Protein backbone atom coordinates (compact mmCIF):
# COMPACT_ATOMS: atom_id res chain seq x y z
CA UNK A 1 0.00 0.00 0.00
CA UNK A 2 2.66 2.49 1.01
CA UNK A 3 4.80 1.71 -1.96
CA UNK A 4 1.77 2.20 -4.20
CA UNK A 5 1.08 5.56 -2.63
CA UNK A 6 4.67 6.66 -3.05
CA UNK A 7 4.72 5.51 -6.66
CA UNK A 8 1.46 7.37 -7.31
CA UNK A 9 2.98 10.57 -6.00
CA UNK A 10 6.00 10.24 -8.26
CA UNK A 11 4.05 9.24 -11.35
CA UNK A 12 1.70 12.19 -10.91
CA UNK A 13 2.32 14.40 -13.96
CA UNK A 14 4.39 17.21 -12.51
CA UNK A 15 5.28 20.37 -14.36
CA UNK A 16 8.75 20.71 -15.71
CA UNK A 17 11.03 22.82 -13.57
CA UNK A 18 12.28 25.05 -16.35
CA UNK A 19 12.68 28.73 -15.58
CA UNK A 20 9.74 31.12 -15.53
CA UNK A 21 9.33 32.61 -18.97
CA UNK A 22 11.20 29.92 -20.89
CA UNK A 23 9.58 29.67 -24.32
CA UNK A 24 9.48 26.42 -26.24
CA UNK A 25 9.20 27.03 -29.98
CA UNK A 26 8.22 23.95 -31.92
CA UNK A 27 6.62 25.15 -35.13
CA UNK A 28 8.74 23.05 -37.45
CA UNK A 29 11.47 21.48 -35.30
CA UNK A 30 9.85 18.16 -34.43
CA UNK A 31 8.66 17.61 -37.99
CA UNK A 32 12.16 18.37 -39.27
CA UNK A 33 13.79 15.93 -36.85
CA UNK A 34 15.38 18.64 -34.72
CA UNK A 35 14.89 19.22 -31.02
CA UNK A 36 12.51 22.08 -30.30
CA UNK A 37 13.99 25.47 -29.46
CA UNK A 38 14.06 26.63 -25.84
CA UNK A 39 14.31 30.40 -25.56
CA UNK A 40 15.33 31.60 -22.06
CA UNK A 41 13.78 35.01 -21.42
CA UNK A 42 15.72 35.44 -18.18
CA UNK A 43 19.06 35.15 -19.96
CA UNK A 44 18.15 37.64 -22.64
CA UNK A 45 16.58 40.26 -20.40
CA UNK A 46 19.80 40.56 -18.43
CA UNK A 47 21.47 41.65 -21.67
CA UNK A 48 18.71 43.39 -23.62
CA UNK A 49 15.56 45.33 -22.81
CA UNK A 50 12.28 43.94 -24.06
CA UNK A 51 12.12 46.70 -26.66
CA UNK A 52 15.10 45.43 -28.64
CA UNK A 53 13.41 42.20 -29.70
CA UNK A 54 9.75 43.07 -29.32
CA UNK A 55 9.86 46.45 -31.06
CA UNK A 56 13.03 46.61 -33.18
CA UNK A 57 13.19 43.00 -34.33
CA UNK A 58 9.45 42.51 -34.58
CA UNK A 59 8.93 39.57 -32.25
CA UNK A 60 5.23 39.40 -31.44
CA UNK A 61 4.17 38.71 -27.86
CA UNK A 62 3.07 35.21 -28.78
CA UNK A 63 4.86 31.92 -28.28
CA UNK A 64 5.22 30.22 -31.64
CA UNK A 65 3.45 33.15 -33.30
CA UNK A 66 6.35 34.57 -35.25
CA UNK A 67 6.79 31.88 -37.89
CA UNK A 68 10.55 31.85 -37.45
CA UNK A 69 12.55 29.54 -39.65
CA UNK A 70 16.26 29.06 -40.24
CA UNK A 71 16.16 30.84 -43.59
CA UNK A 72 14.92 34.03 -41.92
CA UNK A 73 17.49 33.70 -39.17
CA UNK A 74 20.36 33.29 -41.63
CA UNK A 75 19.04 36.35 -43.47
CA UNK A 76 19.50 38.29 -40.24
CA UNK A 77 15.89 38.45 -39.13
CA UNK A 78 14.53 37.52 -35.71
CA UNK A 79 17.20 35.58 -33.76
CA UNK A 80 19.61 36.13 -36.63
CA UNK A 81 19.84 39.83 -35.89
CA UNK A 82 22.16 39.01 -33.00
CA UNK A 83 23.00 35.33 -33.44
CA UNK A 84 25.33 36.05 -36.31
CA UNK A 85 28.70 35.58 -34.65
CA UNK A 86 29.01 39.33 -34.01
CA UNK A 87 26.61 40.25 -31.19
CA UNK A 88 26.04 36.67 -30.02
CA UNK A 89 27.22 33.24 -31.09
CA UNK A 90 26.35 32.23 -34.62
CA UNK A 91 23.58 29.97 -35.90
CA UNK A 92 26.11 27.22 -36.48
CA UNK A 93 25.74 26.29 -32.80
CA UNK A 94 22.56 24.39 -33.60
CA UNK A 95 22.36 22.45 -30.33
CA UNK A 96 22.44 25.52 -28.10
CA UNK A 97 18.99 26.65 -29.27
CA UNK A 98 17.61 23.31 -30.44
CA UNK A 99 18.02 21.82 -27.00
CA UNK A 100 14.48 20.94 -25.88
CA UNK A 101 13.05 17.53 -25.22
CA UNK A 102 11.64 16.14 -28.46
CA UNK A 103 7.88 16.44 -28.59
CA UNK A 104 7.61 19.36 -26.17
CA UNK A 105 4.66 21.51 -27.27
CA UNK A 106 4.86 25.26 -27.87
CA UNK A 107 4.56 26.99 -24.52
CA UNK A 108 5.65 29.77 -22.23
CA UNK A 109 6.77 27.95 -19.16
CA UNK A 110 4.90 28.73 -15.91
CA UNK A 111 2.53 31.11 -17.68
CA UNK A 112 -0.85 31.70 -16.06
CA UNK A 113 -2.54 29.47 -18.60
CA UNK A 114 -0.33 26.59 -17.53
CA UNK A 115 -1.22 27.11 -13.90
CA UNK A 116 -4.95 26.71 -14.46
CA UNK A 117 -6.26 23.41 -13.15
CA UNK A 118 -7.15 20.93 -15.84
CA UNK A 119 -9.48 17.93 -15.52
CA UNK A 120 -7.59 15.01 -14.06
CA UNK A 121 -9.79 12.43 -15.75
CA UNK A 122 -10.11 13.27 -19.45
CA UNK A 123 -12.77 10.57 -19.92
CA UNK A 124 -15.30 12.54 -17.94
CA UNK A 125 -14.82 15.80 -19.77
CA UNK A 126 -17.24 16.95 -22.41
CA UNK A 127 -15.79 17.58 -25.79
Amino acid at each position, binding site marked *: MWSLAIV*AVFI*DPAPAVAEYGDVVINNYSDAAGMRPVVFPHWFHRIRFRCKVCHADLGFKFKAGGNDINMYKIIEGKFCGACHNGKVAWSVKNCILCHS*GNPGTPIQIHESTMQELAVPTNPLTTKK
Partner: protein
Amino acid sequence: MNRISKLLLCPMLVALLAAPFYYATAAEPAKSKAAKSKGKTNPEPAPASAAADPATTQPPVQQYQYSTRPAAVAGGANPFNRLLKVAKIPHQPASSDEIHDPTNEGSMILQPPLEAYEGLPQTETGLGNGVNWVKALDDGNIKPRWERTDPSAEPMVMDMNIVRVPKSSMPDVVFPHRQHTLWLACSNCHPDIFIPRKGANQINMAAIILGQKCGVCHGKVSFPVSECKRCHSQPKKVAVNGGGPTQ
Protein backbone atom coordinates in the same frame (compact mmCIF):
# COMPACT_ATOMS: atom_id res chain seq x y z
CA MET B 1 -27.24 -18.31 36.91
CA ASN B 2 -25.32 -21.50 36.24
CA ARG B 3 -28.45 -23.43 35.47
CA ILE B 4 -29.78 -20.80 33.12
CA SER B 5 -26.50 -20.57 31.24
CA LYS B 6 -26.30 -24.36 30.97
CA LEU B 7 -29.86 -24.51 29.74
CA LEU B 8 -29.09 -21.87 27.15
CA LEU B 9 -25.78 -23.40 26.10
CA CYS B 10 -27.04 -26.93 25.52
CA PRO B 11 -29.46 -26.19 22.68
CA MET B 12 -26.94 -23.79 21.17
CA LEU B 13 -24.25 -26.50 21.11
CA VAL B 14 -26.69 -28.94 19.58
CA ALA B 15 -27.70 -26.39 17.02
CA LEU B 16 -24.05 -25.65 16.21
CA LEU B 17 -23.19 -29.31 15.73
CA ALA B 18 -26.27 -30.03 13.68
CA ALA B 19 -26.10 -26.86 11.66
CA PRO B 20 -23.63 -27.90 8.91
CA PHE B 21 -25.61 -31.00 8.00
CA TYR B 22 -28.89 -29.24 8.36
CA TYR B 23 -27.69 -26.32 6.29
CA ALA B 24 -26.27 -28.55 3.61
CA THR B 25 -29.34 -30.72 3.31
CA ALA B 26 -31.63 -27.72 3.29
CA ALA B 27 -29.65 -26.10 0.53
CA GLU B 28 -29.27 -29.13 -1.69
CA PRO B 29 -31.70 -31.85 -0.67
CA ALA B 30 -31.22 -33.89 -3.84
CA LYS B 31 -27.46 -34.18 -3.55
CA SER B 32 -27.17 -35.50 -0.04
CA LYS B 33 -23.83 -37.23 -0.53
CA ALA B 34 -22.20 -34.23 -1.96
CA ALA B 35 -23.76 -32.12 0.71
CA LYS B 36 -22.44 -34.35 3.45
CA SER B 37 -18.95 -34.36 2.13
CA LYS B 38 -19.17 -30.62 1.71
CA GLY B 39 -20.37 -30.32 5.27
CA LYS B 40 -17.43 -32.35 6.53
CA THR B 41 -14.79 -30.46 4.69
CA ASN B 42 -16.34 -27.08 5.25
CA PRO B 43 -18.10 -27.00 8.60
CA GLU B 44 -17.90 -23.22 9.06
CA PRO B 45 -20.64 -21.51 7.09
CA ALA B 46 -22.91 -19.32 9.24
CA PRO B 47 -24.28 -21.95 11.60
CA ALA B 48 -26.18 -19.65 13.93
CA SER B 49 -28.06 -17.83 11.23
CA ALA B 50 -28.75 -21.01 9.34
CA ALA B 51 -30.06 -22.64 12.48
CA ALA B 52 -32.14 -19.63 13.40
CA ASP B 53 -33.73 -19.37 9.95
CA PRO B 54 -36.64 -21.66 9.20
CA ALA B 55 -35.94 -24.37 6.68
CA THR B 56 -36.23 -22.72 3.29
CA THR B 57 -35.65 -24.32 -0.09
CA GLN B 58 -33.87 -21.15 -1.30
CA PRO B 59 -30.08 -21.24 -1.50
CA PRO B 60 -28.33 -19.34 1.29
CA VAL B 61 -28.32 -15.56 1.01
CA GLN B 62 -25.20 -14.45 -0.74
CA GLN B 63 -23.24 -12.19 1.56
CA TYR B 64 -21.64 -9.10 0.00
CA GLN B 65 -18.20 -10.12 -1.11
CA TYR B 66 -15.89 -7.49 0.33
CA SER B 67 -12.87 -9.17 -1.16
CA THR B 68 -14.01 -8.48 -4.71
CA ARG B 69 -14.14 -4.74 -4.06
CA PRO B 70 -11.08 -2.93 -5.43
CA ALA B 71 -8.77 -1.87 -2.66
CA ALA B 72 -8.71 1.87 -2.13
CA VAL B 73 -5.24 3.18 -2.85
CA ALA B 74 -3.96 6.39 -1.35
CA GLY B 75 -3.10 8.55 -4.30
CA GLY B 76 -5.66 6.79 -6.48
CA ALA B 77 -8.86 8.76 -6.76
CA ASN B 78 -8.41 10.60 -3.47
CA PRO B 79 -4.96 12.11 -3.17
CA PHE B 80 -4.50 15.04 -0.85
CA ASN B 81 -5.10 17.61 -3.57
CA ARG B 82 -5.66 16.09 -6.94
CA LEU B 83 -5.44 19.40 -8.81
CA LEU B 84 -2.29 20.67 -7.16
CA LYS B 85 0.75 19.67 -9.11
CA VAL B 86 3.75 18.40 -7.23
CA ALA B 87 6.09 21.23 -6.36
CA LYS B 88 9.59 20.95 -7.71
CA ILE B 89 12.83 22.71 -6.97
CA PRO B 90 12.90 25.85 -9.11
CA HIS B 91 15.76 27.42 -11.07
CA GLN B 92 17.27 24.13 -12.18
CA PRO B 93 20.14 24.16 -14.69
CA ALA B 94 19.27 23.20 -18.26
CA SER B 95 20.63 19.70 -17.74
CA SER B 96 17.88 18.81 -15.26
CA ASP B 97 15.01 21.22 -15.88
CA GLU B 98 12.87 18.68 -17.76
CA ILE B 99 12.39 20.98 -20.74
CA HIS B 100 15.91 20.76 -22.09
CA ASP B 101 17.01 17.44 -23.45
CA PRO B 102 19.68 16.12 -21.05
CA THR B 103 21.11 13.97 -23.84
CA ASN B 104 21.81 17.11 -25.87
CA GLU B 105 25.40 18.26 -25.48
CA GLY B 106 24.34 21.88 -25.88
CA SER B 107 22.16 21.72 -22.77
CA MET B 108 25.29 21.34 -20.65
CA ILE B 109 26.88 24.48 -22.10
CA LEU B 110 23.93 26.74 -21.25
CA GLN B 111 24.23 29.00 -18.23
CA PRO B 112 22.37 27.85 -15.10
CA PRO B 113 19.81 30.46 -13.96
CA LEU B 114 21.06 30.66 -10.38
CA GLU B 115 24.52 31.54 -11.60
CA ALA B 116 23.06 34.49 -13.47
CA TYR B 117 20.86 35.58 -10.54
CA GLU B 118 23.77 35.86 -8.12
CA GLY B 119 23.81 39.31 -6.59
CA LEU B 120 20.48 40.34 -8.11
CA PRO B 121 17.76 41.65 -5.78
CA GLN B 122 15.15 39.05 -4.99
CA THR B 123 11.40 39.41 -4.64
CA GLU B 124 9.60 38.69 -1.36
CA THR B 125 7.50 35.94 -2.83
CA GLY B 126 10.18 34.27 -4.89
CA LEU B 127 7.60 33.64 -7.58
CA GLY B 128 8.54 33.60 -11.22
CA ASN B 129 12.26 34.10 -11.64
CA GLY B 130 12.40 35.27 -8.02
CA VAL B 131 14.34 38.30 -9.21
CA ASN B 132 13.16 41.89 -8.88
CA TRP B 133 14.16 42.86 -12.38
CA VAL B 134 13.17 46.51 -12.10
CA LYS B 135 15.20 46.94 -8.92
CA ALA B 136 18.11 45.15 -10.54
CA LEU B 137 17.94 47.62 -13.40
CA ASP B 138 17.56 50.65 -11.10
CA ASP B 139 20.42 49.56 -8.86
CA GLY B 140 22.67 48.91 -11.83
CA ASN B 141 23.04 45.20 -11.14
CA ILE B 142 22.22 44.55 -14.77
CA LYS B 143 22.80 46.76 -17.78
CA PRO B 144 20.58 45.48 -20.54
CA ARG B 145 21.06 47.26 -23.84
CA TRP B 146 18.41 49.56 -25.18
CA GLU B 147 19.81 49.23 -28.69
CA ARG B 148 20.93 45.96 -30.15
CA THR B 149 24.49 47.03 -30.92
CA ASP B 150 24.89 50.30 -29.00
CA PRO B 151 25.65 49.77 -25.29
CA SER B 152 25.45 53.49 -24.52
CA ALA B 153 21.93 54.11 -25.84
CA GLU B 154 19.49 55.17 -23.16
CA PRO B 155 15.70 54.83 -23.15
CA MET B 156 13.27 57.72 -23.17
CA VAL B 157 11.63 57.32 -19.79
CA MET B 158 8.17 58.68 -19.15
CA ASP B 159 7.36 59.11 -15.48
CA MET B 160 3.60 59.10 -15.23
CA ASN B 161 1.45 57.00 -12.95
CA ILE B 162 -2.04 55.92 -13.83
CA VAL B 163 -4.38 54.93 -11.01
CA ARG B 164 -7.12 52.50 -11.79
CA VAL B 165 -9.92 51.88 -9.31
CA PRO B 166 -11.09 48.27 -9.34
CA LYS B 167 -14.78 47.61 -8.82
CA SER B 168 -13.92 45.01 -6.21
CA SER B 169 -12.51 45.50 -2.73
CA MET B 170 -8.94 45.12 -3.94
CA PRO B 171 -6.62 48.09 -3.43
CA ASP B 172 -6.31 50.51 -6.32
CA VAL B 173 -3.91 49.71 -9.11
CA VAL B 174 -1.07 52.09 -9.75
CA PHE B 175 0.39 51.65 -13.19
CA PRO B 176 3.83 53.26 -13.37
CA HIS B 177 4.90 54.28 -16.85
CA ARG B 178 8.47 54.76 -15.65
CA GLN B 179 9.21 51.10 -14.98
CA HIS B 180 7.56 50.09 -18.21
CA THR B 181 9.31 52.63 -20.41
CA LEU B 182 12.63 51.48 -18.95
CA TRP B 183 12.08 48.17 -20.68
CA LEU B 184 9.66 48.78 -23.50
CA ALA B 185 8.92 51.13 -26.38
CA CYS B 186 5.57 52.91 -26.51
CA SER B 187 4.63 50.93 -29.61
CA ASN B 188 4.81 47.66 -27.69
CA CYS B 189 1.62 48.50 -25.81
CA HIS B 190 0.00 51.40 -27.66
CA PRO B 191 -2.36 51.23 -29.39
CA ASP B 192 -2.69 47.45 -29.89
CA ILE B 193 -2.94 46.30 -26.27
CA PHE B 194 -3.97 49.52 -24.55
CA ILE B 195 -5.75 52.41 -26.25
CA PRO B 196 -3.92 55.48 -24.96
CA ARG B 197 -7.03 57.26 -23.76
CA LYS B 198 -8.52 57.51 -20.29
CA GLY B 199 -11.41 55.14 -19.73
CA ALA B 200 -10.96 53.37 -23.05
CA ASN B 201 -9.56 50.13 -21.64
CA GLN B 202 -11.65 47.56 -19.87
CA ILE B 203 -9.31 45.40 -17.81
CA ASN B 204 -10.25 42.49 -15.56
CA MET B 205 -8.30 39.73 -13.89
CA ALA B 206 -9.88 36.98 -15.98
CA ALA B 207 -8.59 38.61 -19.16
CA ILE B 208 -5.16 39.05 -17.59
CA ILE B 209 -4.95 35.41 -16.54
CA LEU B 210 -5.96 34.38 -20.05
CA GLY B 211 -3.05 36.40 -21.42
CA GLN B 212 -4.69 39.62 -22.53
CA LYS B 213 -4.05 43.25 -21.51
CA CYS B 214 -1.46 43.24 -18.70
CA GLY B 215 -1.37 39.45 -19.07
CA VAL B 216 0.42 39.74 -22.39
CA CYS B 217 3.59 40.08 -20.31
CA HIS B 218 2.59 39.64 -16.64
CA GLY B 219 2.15 35.99 -15.86
CA LYS B 220 4.44 35.00 -18.71
CA VAL B 221 7.74 36.86 -18.42
CA SER B 222 7.26 39.92 -16.22
CA PHE B 223 6.42 39.37 -12.56
CA PRO B 224 3.58 36.86 -12.13
CA VAL B 225 -0.06 37.73 -11.56
CA SER B 226 0.12 36.10 -8.14
CA GLU B 227 2.18 39.02 -6.86
CA CYS B 228 -1.05 40.93 -6.32
CA LYS B 229 0.38 43.75 -4.23
CA ARG B 230 2.84 44.95 -6.80
CA CYS B 231 -0.05 46.25 -8.92
CA HIS B 232 -2.78 46.63 -6.33
CA SER B 233 -0.54 48.87 -4.31
CA GLN B 234 -2.57 51.90 -3.26
CA PRO B 235 -5.07 51.64 -0.40
CA LYS B 236 -8.61 52.20 -1.49
CA LYS B 237 -10.17 55.50 -0.55
CA VAL B 238 -13.36 54.43 1.15
CA ALA B 239 -16.23 56.16 -0.61
CA VAL B 240 -19.51 57.32 0.86
CA ASN B 241 -21.12 54.05 -0.07
CA GLY B 242 -18.56 52.12 1.93
CA GLY B 243 -16.25 51.29 -0.94
CA GLY B 244 -18.97 49.91 -3.18
CA PRO B 245 -19.01 50.37 -6.94
CA THR B 246 -18.62 53.97 -7.94
CA GLN B 247 -21.66 54.86 -10.03
